[in-house]
C-alpha cells in the first residue's frame, strides 16, 4: 500500500516538474513578446498588449483552464489535458509576466535611451544590445517569484484530470487513508522544489547574467 503511494507521488512530482517547465517556457516567450509590445511606440500595438494583459490577469486561472478544456471542444478543437495544462497556465501567467517585463524595461535609466539615440542605434539594436541586458537584471527576481507561482498553479490541473503532485497525494491518501502523511509529504515536496531548486537556479542566473554587477543579498 505504502509503496503504491510512494510510486504515485514520484510520478506526480515528475508530472508537476514537466508541466512547470513547459508552462514557464510558454510564459517566458509570450511575456517577453507582449511586454515588448506594451512599450512599443505604435499605439495599436500597445493597445493590443494592454487588452491581452487585462484579459489574462482579470479572469481566474481556473476559469481560463475550464474554458480551454470544456468550451474549445465545442468548436471542434479538443485539446489534450497536457496541452491545456501547459498552455493554459502559461498563457495566464504571461499576462503577469508581461507587466514584469514592462516594469523592468521602464526601469532602465532614461540616459541609456538617449545615449543610444545619440549613437544612432536603430530601435532594434538599442533594445537588443543596450536596454534588454540591463532590464534582465531587474527582471530576474520577479521572474523567480513567477516561477514559484507557476509551480503552485500546476496544482490546479487537478481539476482537469492530470495526475500531478497534488492529485497524486490525494489519490495516495484516499487509497491508504493516511491523509496526514501524504499531504505533509506533498507540502514539503512543493516547498523543497521551490526553495532548493527554483530559488538557487534563479540566483545562479542572476549571477550569470549580471557580470560586473554585484547584487546585494536578497531575502
Amino acid at each position, binding site marked *: 500500500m505504502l509503496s503504491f503511494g510512494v510510486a504515485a507521488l514520484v510520478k506526480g512530482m515528475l508530472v508537476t516538474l514537466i508541466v512547470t517547465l513547459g508552462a514557464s517556457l510558454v510564459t517566458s516567450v509570450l511575456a517577453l513578446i507582449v511586454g515588448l509590445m506594451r512599450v512599443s511606440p505604435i499605439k495599436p500595438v500597445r493597445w493590443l498588449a494592454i487588452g491581452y494583459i487585462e484579459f489574462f490577469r482579470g479572469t481566474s486561472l*481556473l*476559469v481560463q483552464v*475550464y474554458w480551454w478544456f470544456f468550451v474549445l471542444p465545442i468548436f471542434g478543437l479538443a485539446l489534450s489535458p497536457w496541452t491545456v495544462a501547459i498552455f493554459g497556465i502559461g498563457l495566464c501567467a504571461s499576462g503577469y509576466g508581461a507587466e514584469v517585463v514592462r516594469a523592468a524595461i521602464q526601469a532602465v535609466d532614461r540616459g541609456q535611451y538617449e545615449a543610444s539615440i545619440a549613437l544612432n542605434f536603430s530601435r532594434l539594436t538599442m533594445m537588443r544590445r543596450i536596454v534588454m541586458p540591463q532590464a534582465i537584471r531587474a527582471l530576474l527576481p520577479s521572474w523567480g517569484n513567477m516561477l514559484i507561482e507557476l509551480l503552485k*498553479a500546476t*496544482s490546479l490541473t487537478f481539476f482537469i484530470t492530470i495526475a500531478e503532485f*497534488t492529485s497524486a497525494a490525494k489519490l495516495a491518501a484516499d487509497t491508504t487513508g493516511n491523509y496526514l502523511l501524504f499531504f505533509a509529504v506533498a*507540502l514539503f515536496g512543493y516547498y523543497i522544489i*521551490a526553495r532548493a531548486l527554483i530559488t538557487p537556479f534563479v540566483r545562479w542566473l542572476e549571477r550569470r547574467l549580471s557580470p560586473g554587477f554585484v547584487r546585494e543579498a536578497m531575502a
Partner: protein
Amino acid sequence: MTIWDWSYVWEALPHLYLGAIVTVEATLFGFAIALILGLVFALIRQSRNRYVSTAMAEVVEFIRSTPLLLQVFFIYFVGPEFGMYIPAWIAGVGMLGVHYAAYCSECYRAGIETVDGGQWEACTALNLSPQRSWRAIILPQAIPPITPALGNYFVGMFKDAPILAAIAIPEMLQRAKNFGGENYRYIEAITMVGFFYLVFSLVASAIVQAVSLWLNRRYHLQ
C-alpha cells in the same frame, strides 16, 4: 446548433447568481482574516527575539511556496483523522485567509520597513510605550502606502476562490460547470463566469484605488 444560445444564458443566470454570492462572501471573509492575521504575522516577524522572527519568516515562506489547493486539502482531510471535523466552509475560507495572510504580511513588512528610523527615535524620545508607538505613529504611516499592494491580493484572492470547489463548496465556477454538464452546453455558462470575473476584478481594483487615495489623504501622506 448555434454557437452562442441566449436562452441558456438566461437559464444559467440564477445558478451563477447563487455561486457569485458564495464567491464574494468567501473573498470578503477570507480577506478580513488575511488583513488581520497578516498584520499579526508581520508584527511577530518584527520581534526582537531572533528565533521568533526567523521562525515566523520560515512559516510565511512555507505558506507562500506551497499551493493553496494542497493546503485546503490538508486542513480539510487531516482534521477528521484526529476526530476534528472541520466544516468545508470554515476550512476553505480559513485557509484562503491564512494563505493570503502570508502574502499580506510581506506587504506590511515592506510598509513597516519604509517608515523612517527617526520616527522610532522620536517615539523613544517622547517616552511612548511600544504599543502606543506602533498604534499611533508607525502603523498609520506604514499601512496607507501599501494599500494598493494589499488590494492586489484582494483581487487575487477573488480569482483563487474557485479552488474551494475542490472541497465541495458550490462557488460560481463549480455551478457553471455543473450547469454545463447537465445541459451539455458549457460555452455560455463558463464564458459568462469569465466575464463576471473580469467585471468584478475591474470594479474591485477601482474600489481599491479609491480606498488607497482616501487613506493616504486621511493620514496626510503624499
